[in-house]
């Protein structure tokens, strides 16, 4: 009787921005086999813990690192990377951890050196004019051997009170261990071994 009052499930668009899988693809700059690792949480915000694969890289090599974001909870899965690209001026990926030195990290004894390899204008209009990095495409160079943590954070930085939150300081703040503005869309950590 009451069921008749309610539209059937799925009759309405479910609008979300869930990300359940983060994939790092590392392509050697000088040719060779790709290395792919992912963090996957197949039940989303459920009680089952998500798991990250371990990342193993050779020392003294340079890689193109791309970050892919996927919502695997819908059928078919939804590619969230495209959506982040479309709103590049409101998003930034920060690569940090005790194994990383780069714009967002100042590890004392780094295993890899990170640099951004993209700009907002690569994906969408740069209306603010700063043309800041986004972090979907990066360059990574492995240094000496060892193991440590590589942390990938996607911050959502929508304008606040009409002013853009995304600025060149976002990565700097993170590098100084200060909380950057905006919200966390992704915060996953991979065990990294360089040998």
């Amino acid at each position, binding site marked *: *009787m009451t069921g008749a009052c309610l539209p059937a499930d799925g009759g309405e668009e479910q*609008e979300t921005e869930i990300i359940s899988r983060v994939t790092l693809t590392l392509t050697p700059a000088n040719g060779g086999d790709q290395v792919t690792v992912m963090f996957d949480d197949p*039940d*989303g915000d459920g009680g089952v813990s998500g798991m*990250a694969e371990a990342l193993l890289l050779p020392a003294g090599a340079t890689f193109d690192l791309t970050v892919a974001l996927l919502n695997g909870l819908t059928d078919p899965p939804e590619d969230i990377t495209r959506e982040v690209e479309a709103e590049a001026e409101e998003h930034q990926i920060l690569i940090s951890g005790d194994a990383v030195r780069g714009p967002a990290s100042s590890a004392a004894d780094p295993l890899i050196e990170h640099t951004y390899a993209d700009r907002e204008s690569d994906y969408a209009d740069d209306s603010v004019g700063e043309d800041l990095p986004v972090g979907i495409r990066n360059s990574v160079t492995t240094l000496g051997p060892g193991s440590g943590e590589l942390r990938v954070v996607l911050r959502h930085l929508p304008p606040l*009170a009409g002013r853009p939150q995304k600025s060149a300081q976002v990565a700097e703040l993170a590098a100084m261990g200060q909380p950057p503005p905006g919200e966390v869309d992704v915060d996953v950590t991979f065990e990294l071994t360089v040998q």
Partner: protein
Amino acid sequence: MIWAHVLAASVIVAAAPADGDAPVPSPAPATATSADARCGYRWRASIVEAGTDEALAGARVVYRNNGGVPSAAISDAEGQITVTDLCPGVLQMAVSETDHALVVLRHVLSEADTHDRIELPPLHEHHSSRVIVVHDENRGKPAASDAISGAKLRRVRGRPLADALTGIGGVTVLRSPAGGMGKPIIRGQVGGRNLILVDGVRHEAQQWGLDHAPEVDPNGAGRITVVKGAATTRYGQRASGGVVLLDSLPLLRTPGTTGEVGTFASSNALGGGGNARVDHALARVRGLALRVEGNVARHRAALAPEYALANTGSNTWNGGARIGYLRDAFDIDVGYRVFGTRLGICDCLNVSSSEDFDARAGARRPPGLADAKARFAIARAEQRVLHHLALARARVPLPRAGELHALYAFQFDDRREYDRVRASITGPQLRLRLATHTGELHFEHRSIPVGAWSLEGIGGVNFGQQSNRITSANTLIPDYEQTSWGAYQVERLVHPRAELELGVRYDGIYRRADLRERDYLGQSVTGHIDEANCRASGRGGICEHDFHAPSGTVAALVRPLAKVPELSWAIKLDSAARTPAIDEQFMNGAAPSFPIIGLGDGHLGIERTWAGETTARYDGAWLNVEGSAYASYIQNYIAFTPTPQEGPCAPLTCTVRGPFPLFEFRATNARLYGGELRFDLQAPRLPLSLSGTGAWVRAFDLRARGFLPFIPADRYGLVGRWSWPDTRASAHGYLELSGTFVARQRRADVAQDFAPAPRSYVLLGAAMGVEFPGRHHVVHTSLVGANLLDARYRDYTSLLRYFADEPGWSLQLRVSIEFAVARLRRD
């Protein structure tokens, strides 16, 4: 002979003595003498309840002879009143009694001795003279309860329900960060352990979310009663902690038109609104009565002393209509009401990860709010709710047997929650739709004499059917269908010096939860599904649970001293059952507002409360004191407890937004005890009064050997009032100063909380008000100031406390006109 300009509702002078708002001239005994003793005219009246003709003792008559100084008289045990030494000419009168609407009379005295019959319309629902209202919780009952009505209720117009109740000892607010709303905490119990009844209909909404304030409009109520402590026997499921009853003013029983139009404005949160109600009873079709009512309010984001609580604006609106056919042989009425609200959730609570939360929790200023402006516009995150209620009621007196009452209601709760998301997303992230049918049939048998005692009683059955649909890409709680029923009988033996009450109830509930595949598999893997009652289905899994449980009450009230009937002592013992709520069984996801993952447990069973309470009360002419103490032991108390995890993020659980703490609903045993103390002191022959309240609650988790969370800290209040004398134009003027002290909650487990309990605080308030009675109307005005010292404080039971301060000082101005256009009826 009746010369009545009926003002239905407690109006003008002498309104509701229970409010403590009545600076009337000191009432004389049943025979009063006018100041001008020269003329020798006499006026007598019998005061009775309209419809039942029951004599009303203790009714107050404030009268003015030819525009002179007002005097007052009070009716005797037979409802008789006599005023002597009047002069010929105009006699204006306002007749009031606590549970009845005020009647204003204008009489031209032309004979030396006049006798009138005055009928006061009851504020409670109509009853035949053969039955005594068993469920009127308002006074003289073994259960501790408190009510606000009349002028006191008018002073909280425009405020959300939970705030309207905070003047009652033992009631506090669990404040949500959404638009300043909150849910009531009654003696430390909140949410699923409290029941809200609107015109007798169980309010059914998404009670499980900590930040889901009840979708109830207190402005439509004529009286709000809070029953403190377990009342499951009479009210059923969810009444194990307390009950809030909101009762509309009854429809008009005599031909005429009455109503109220009001407006209010507030400085913080800046905003205001208006309300209107019109009641009409037709003269041509005797018994046909109509009501139309509505209100709107809009508020900007609130201001804490040092910054704006950005995005806490709110828009609310309500509308409703009722039509009734009220006769002596039967009453029937149908009504519809809709409550709409849009609430912004404070930007300060914009937390997306555990790390984010830690950075914000406890900060003096919320990061990112430094330049925030208070705006009327509401942005994400926000909640939008529509709550529809349609009801039909009937009352049929049965000759020599009693009275039968029937009620049917349909409610539809439509809640949409919007998170801060990418700009391309326009819809809600969570939509919850709950449809509920409820039906109740109860019979109040006539009073049966048993020697010097009389036996009164009420028995009934109730039925409910509920269907919940959730639209969200994340799992949180599953869709479900639920059928519930209950049967009860409460009998009372009443003697002038004592009352005994015995009640029993049996409840059943059947719930069928429909879990999606991901939800079902996830919960199965982690062992949270009760496999014995669940099975895999095409979409995921179906879980069916059946709960049955009895509840019972034994209570007594005695007036131990024959010479001091004002003194009473009550004791009450309860055993109350509560079935686990949907979230307690099946929650699986990030809990709203907090960076935690919450998990239900399908194995949870009935939570049983064993409660005892005692209340001593003295209702004297100038002193009113009430003290209550209570204790309860709750078996299988369902508590939301942190659970350490193993794995890469131990002791937390890994999510794509970083490690989150995991909380589970677990059964433990709990002990709660506490007390309340209240006094009202009216200085004899002086226009000064002083009242004070104190409330204490202690709550322990016996298995974890710790404290239960979100238990209100010790709270004390003191109000001093000066009532200035009535003048030709004004009545009921008062000026009051109030102070509230809330201690620090030292009984909180720091390890199980995200931040230490906030410091103690003192709030200073002030209020003034006056009424301007006219011939067919009364203008009520009040100005209320809150937190006048602009104290910076945080409250232990506010979800805002982790992130930001509570709002600073504010002023609220209210003006309303209550009017009556009545036909003269001559008997």
